């Protein structure tokens, strides 16, 4: 059963105002194209969950899509702060729910596992625990020591960008894995964007590489370069310059609006975005091949 569709259709059908969204990926495979499509379709009151909001959530917050953020690190990685999110928090305009990376990922792990909560060892840094009532403590029944627990996170929608998927949504990822698998299993609905839609036989040639099985996927969309300015291992490089540039763009409301007009609202889709980036940029982000040694599964 093919689940192939366009990204705009996938967002239209599966992302609703007020939904909790988890756009997965730790520095790698960040689903920018889907974020832009959500902005384009003017979704609002979203609860945006992500360990590292990165520029994409900064842009979505700027565009008025969000009512709340669930996160564990709000920085522009390697650059500084996310100016928009930071100022919205400082001015009290957006609700937040904050974790450490480990507790954020533990929430997803619990959600993906069908568990109501998951324990973590104590860290002795208790201020965040006091600031966020979702953190609780229970006693280890074996030693009587306390452990810290967080509740399952089950987003309405997980959005995951992958290197390759088949038309049924069976998806393979390599490079930094982040929390893609956990987000997909934790969510009620799953949207996959893929650099390549490949024949089922490619997927079946290496089943251990499949992190997300198609039967939990709702939509799969072929969207090359969907991760820019983030990257896709083996397909294109990270656009570090844009991470610096955004720091300038986001200094003023005007800069932000111009950016959104030019690069999001003013474009129909990711293909147009990629073309607009231009051949110089394409050349800069190009990556030379470095292939894995194959493994033998054997014909039984």
């Amino acid at each position, binding site marked *: 059963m093919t689940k192939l569709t366009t990204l705009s259709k996938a967002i239209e059908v599966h992302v609703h105002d007020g939904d909790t969204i988890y756009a997965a990926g730790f*520095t790698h495979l960040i689903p920018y194209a889907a974020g832009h499509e959500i902005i384009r379709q003017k979704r609002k009151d979203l609860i945006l969950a992500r360990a590292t909001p990165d520029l994409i959530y900064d842009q979505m917050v700027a565009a008025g899509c969000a009512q709340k953020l669930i996160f564990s690190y709000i920085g522009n990685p390697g650059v500084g702060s996310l100016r928009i999110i930071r100022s919205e928090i400082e001015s009290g305009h957006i609700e937040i729910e904050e974790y450490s990376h480990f507790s954020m990922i533990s929430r997803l792990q619990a959600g993906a596992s069908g568990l109501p909560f998951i324990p973590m060892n104590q860290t002795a*840094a208790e201020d*965040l625990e006091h600031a966020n009532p979702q953190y609780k403590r229970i006693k280890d029944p074996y030693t009587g020591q306390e452990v810290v627990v967080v509740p399952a996170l089950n987003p309405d929608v997980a959005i995951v960008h992958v290197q390759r998927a088949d038309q049924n949504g069976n998806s393979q990822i390599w490079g930094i894995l982040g929390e893609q698998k956990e987000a997909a299993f934790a969510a009620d609905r799953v949207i996959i964007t893929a650099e390549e839609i490949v024949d089922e036989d490619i997927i079946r040639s290496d089943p251990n590489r499949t992190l997300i099985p198609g039967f939990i996927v709702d939509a799969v969309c072929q969207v090359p370069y969907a991760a820019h300015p983030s990257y896709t291992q083996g397909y294109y490089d990270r656009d570090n310059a844009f991470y610096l540039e955004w720091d300038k763009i986001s200094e003023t409301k005007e800069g932000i609006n111009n950016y959104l007009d030019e690069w999001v609202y003013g474009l129909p889709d990711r293909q147009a975005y990629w073309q607009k980036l231009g051949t110089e940029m394409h050349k800069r982000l190009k990556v030379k091949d470095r292939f894995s040694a194959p493994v033998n599964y054997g014909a039984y």
Partner: protein
Amino acid sequence: MEYSSSELMTVNAARLLRDGDTVFVGVGLPNLACNLARHTHAPNLLMIYEAGVIGARPERLPLSIGDPTLVSGATAVCSMYDIFTLYLQRGNVDVGFLGGAQIDQFGNINATVIGDYQHPKVRLPGSGGSMEMAAWANRCYIITPHQTRRFPKKVDFRTSAGFLASRAERVSKGVRGGGPQAVVTDLGLMEPDENGELILTSLHPGISVDQARKNTGWELKVSPRCNVTEPPTASELQILRDELDPTGIYIKDGK
């Protein structure tokens, strides 16, 4: 030989690492310090990145914690849940590098907020992986310039635990790691005393105790064994400048 304060801090941090250490490392100076140690006295240092990369062999200077150059040619890559459970919580990490806007008298770190949490004056990035690293790595090191605003007597928010209000208090919490072992600044080194309070244990060449005191937000005690650090050697600087950061992205004098 002339050197910048970034170079000075990096060289001194590198010297704290031991051969065979497993280090949980971020980009920037900690990454440079680890690679410098690998090129000098610690060839068997194993570098683990928060993003889930083990045994990276970057062919260029990584610019983000998830730089693809960390992945190509690494020995292993795992999920974030695995890196925090199997590696960090399990006790497989010897050394963690920490940073933050404020570090207090007992090595507690604030990377979350200046002012009140609910009504922040300045909102900072937050914990990321530092809360767990500070708790569970066997040893933690902090690299940061020495300025009064960075070293208040008490942090506004404890993002990650040093010794809390005393070494005994940290021990009473039962966390597995040994806590901060040293703070490397551009003036010298501070290390915890028997009570967990950070005291001055080394000064860099040409720096006075008074300079260190003036730039610390509490009454900085001086160790009776306080010594002067060896200046960066020509070989250390050559490796840093020519091999590790040839375009001077991190080690040019700035902050």
